């Protein structure tokens, strides 16, 4: 069933497809980013494919993995009526991580795309409200990029230094009486 989807896609958009492969029935098509909206709309509308549900959407950072270009956005499509799946991938270069938004085609893409922007810093052209969804506005950088240092903390709030110093000083002799400090 799903081989048919890949076959039809290859016939219809031969010039926009970078490569296709299937691994144990999981069909994947890597397509050019300019064709994304057209391909998705077509897959959704064409009668015997009807891939009308965007079940998941994520991104991959291939930094230092010997993979060019650096980013990949992955779309998982499912047909509720015909019960088959198709995976689409779009490759994006580090210096220009922009792809068209799918908010028009799938409402759920709104939040998926905001999450990908939050975590990977990939921008979506035509998104109505592209701002962080999980992290706070004060956060600098995109933490799931492989070059984000994993020890870096960006606290929103910390106690005053003297309170923390007092706690440290008190450790080990918790029973001593309080003294007036001033």
């Amino acid at each position, binding site marked *: 069933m799903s081989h048919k989807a890949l076959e039809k896609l290859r016939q219809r958009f031969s010039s926009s497809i970078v490569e296709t492969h299937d691994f144990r029935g999981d069909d994947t098509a890597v397509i050019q980013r300019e064709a994304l909206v057209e391909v998705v709309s077509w897959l959704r509308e064409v009668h015997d494919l009807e891939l009308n549900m965007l079940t998941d959407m994520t991104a991959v950072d291939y930094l230092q993995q010997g993979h060019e270009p650096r980013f990949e956005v992955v779309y998982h499509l499912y047909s509720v009526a015909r019960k088959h799946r198709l995976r689409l991938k779009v490759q994006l270069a580090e210096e220009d991580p922009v792809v068209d938004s799918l908010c028009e085609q799938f409402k759920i893409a709104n939040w998926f795309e905001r999450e990908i922007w939050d975590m990977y810093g990939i921008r979506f052209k035509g998104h109505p409200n592209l701002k962080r969804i999980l*992290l*706070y506005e004060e956060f600098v950088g995109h*933490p799931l990029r492989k070059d*984000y240092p*994993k*020890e*870096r*903390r*960006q*606290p*929103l*709030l*910390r*106690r005053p230094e003297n*309170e*923390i110093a007092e*706690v440290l000083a008190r450790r080990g002799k*918790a*029973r001593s009486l*309080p*003294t*007036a*400090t*001033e």
Partner: protein
Amino acid sequence: MGLEFATGRLADAVNWARKFSLFQYPFVTACCGMEYMALWGPRYDVARFGAEFPRFSPRQADMLMVVGTVTERQGPILKRIYEQITEPKWVISFGVCASSGGFYQNYATMPGIDHVIPVDVYIPGCPPRPEAVLDALIMLQEKIQTGQGWSQRQYQVEQERKRLDRQQTRNAR
């Protein structure tokens, strides 16, 4: 001397009453919550220690239980809830995540809630056994009785400063 003795006895009595009527506010964010529920059940029964009554408004509570992982984004929320609790107040950090961040070492997780609010008792464990929580509760009761809770100490320090101020004014006169 007589007055000090009387007020000392009074404070003891008040602290005794406080330690057996802890109204808790559960700040439950993660899987430790399951163990926290077991604590309430008939098998462990935290009611035996007078701390069974959860208030779902911090303004009616005097013990904050931070149960589970706290993210950096929750920091201001936690601080605000702590500030709403009436004095004197106590904080129990329930589980490793609340105490130190636990096995989360990343951009999102706060490395221990004591970076944001003062903590009286830490409970290790992932999640801690209910026995460990009851032990912590007894430790907290000891702290309350001896006036060693953070907010109790702050209050005493404040009183001491006022007393010194008064003395200074009297001497200057």
